[in-house]
């Protein structure tokens, strides 16, 4: 996850294959202003945030740095992000207070899942993800589903969440 607004903005602009000049023209600001946003020197006016989010097919929450897409969305084919730019995010919070975050680029996750080696285990309690049908998850992602894909709580109180963004 890119931590600054500028980095997120730059990534979204590049994903859309737009130049700073094109973005500036669409938003009615100068290219220098866009350059300043990307370098975290200044920030866009709050009234532009929704327009920026719509232009990049994202949410204002994401622009402002909210880490997880809380909801599950089905994205139409023409608006889907390049799968090579997506991340499979696994979050595990154990009852003991341990927290594990794994962010795997989707391209690499696909290889691991295809090779039938998706047996991730965490800690002594061996929270195993082998029972999760990752092939089914990949199929959902291919069909345009993004956001939270899995949320489960084990009998011991451990929580596992899987997102794709």
């Amino acid at each position, binding site marked *: 996850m890119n931590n600054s607004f500028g980095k997120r903005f730059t990534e979204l602009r590049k994903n859309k294959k737009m130049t700073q000049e094109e973005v500036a023209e669409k938003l009615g600001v100068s290219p220098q202003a866009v350059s300043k946003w990307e370098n975290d020197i200044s920030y866009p006016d709050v009234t532009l945030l929704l327009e920026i989010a719509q232009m990049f097919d994202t949410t204002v929450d994401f622009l402002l740095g909210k880490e997880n897409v809380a909801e599950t969305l089905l994205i139409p084919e023409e608006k889907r992000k390049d799968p090579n730019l997506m*991340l499979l995010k696994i979050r595990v919070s154990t009852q003991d207070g341990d927290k*594990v*975050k794994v962010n795997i680029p989707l391209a*690499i996750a696909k290889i691991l899942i295809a090779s039938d080696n998706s047996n991730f285990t965490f800690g002594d309690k061996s929270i195993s993800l082998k029972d999760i049908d990752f092939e089914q998850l990949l199929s959902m992602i291919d069909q345009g589903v993004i956001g939270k894909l899995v949320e489960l709580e084990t009998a011991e109180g451990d929580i596992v969440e899987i997102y794709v963004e």
Partner: protein
Amino acid sequence: MIDMKIIIRKRGHIGFPIIIPHWLFTNKSLIRKFCNNQLEMNLTEEEIKKIAKDLKKCKKVFNKLELISVESADGEIVKIYL
């Protein structure tokens, strides 16, 4: 290209980074040894080749990606950045 960084920190102590050059973690021979020997994953040569290629690509696309972050209840932190 910026290298892979592993940060280990214990509560009350100063963390230290371990820098792994990018040519090392995208080396097919090391990927084979790590995945197949250490993790017993039985990846084929084709899969190893694709992982090495995709790692290089991901490094460019997701620069400074937080690949793994582990925070234990007693305050130990391990983070791996790609």
